[in-house]
């Protein structure tokens, strides 16, 4: 994966497959401690202790369409390569939290990339899932929730070109105002 937003898009699929109806993504930039942390929390079916132990094994997957599960193992690899680590908390029936920490100034930390595109295509695909994105820096905090977008749009489709461009601009402008590292 070339960007952190690609990883987020990938891990979101895990949450969807787990039957999540609420997914929260929190990006926390901490220049003082040199951390760039991504936390994805869902209310899906969670993993048993046995499955949790194997979750980052690239040759383990819960799917039957293939014999490899690369998403979490690639995220772990990229986090560790950038001086960080991956942690996963999960319990059967109680959801999952995936936390990837990167060293902010590490040259191997991938850029965030176009997170607005990832959020948008996920909102378009999974209208019944509430997806919340939070980005925090020392300059401020930006939050956006799909339930608010849905309420505002009403009957106007999310796929309308002007709406799409407006959402992109809203997210980009707010990330710029908090000096987010993208």
């Amino acid at each position, binding site marked *: 994966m070339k960007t952190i937003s690609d990883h987020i898009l990938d891990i979101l699929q895990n949450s969807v497959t787990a039957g999540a109806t609420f997914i929260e993504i929190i990006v926390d930039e901490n220049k003082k401690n040199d951390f760039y942390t991504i936390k994805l929390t869902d209310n899906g079916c969670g993993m048993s202790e046995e499955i949790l132990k194997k979750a980052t094994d690239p040759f383990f997957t819960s799917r039957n369409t293939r014999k490899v599960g690369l998403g979490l193992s690639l995220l772990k690899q990229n986090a560790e390569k950038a001086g960080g680590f991956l942690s996963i908390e999960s319990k059967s029936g109680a959801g999952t939290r995936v936390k990837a920490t990167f060293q902010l100034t590490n040259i191997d930390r991938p850029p965030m990339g176009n997170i607005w595109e990832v959020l948008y295509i996920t909102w378009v695909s999974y209208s019944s899932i509430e997806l919340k994105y939070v980005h925090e820096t020392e300059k401020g905090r930006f939050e956006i929730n799909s339930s608010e977008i849905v309420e505002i749009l009403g009957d106007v489709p999310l*796929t309308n070109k002007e709406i799409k461009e407006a959402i992109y601009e809203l997210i980009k402008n707010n990330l710029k105002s908090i000096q987010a590292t993208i």
Partner: protein
Amino acid sequence: MTTIKTLADLRRIKEELQSKIKLRENSNHPEQLTQIKVGMATCGIASGAKETMKYFLEELEQQAIDAVVTQTGCMGFCYAEPTVEVILPNREPVVFGFVDKAKAQEIIDVYIKKGKLVDGVMPITFKTIDD
């Protein structure tokens, strides 16, 4: 152009548009719409499936073609990503492989608009490793 920074700005844009656009009439009956599902698992994303999905969304909107575009999980054709499943109304699903922007355009112009198959169909005899 006015800066869009708050949800109130988004609401204003929506209100300006509402009177101008024709709202989808059969959005409560997705089976009557063409459905396009883009594989968005790890191998799909690494192969450019996000760009494929964006292209479908933009082109179908541009051409005012009634269709629902969504992402889906792994369909098992990791060697042929990006893969896209297209379900025309009252037709069986068809999965296409190696769908870049050019192939996406061909699928729209030939299969979705005219119902004629194009090269790159994934075989329905595909079995999973467990079969």
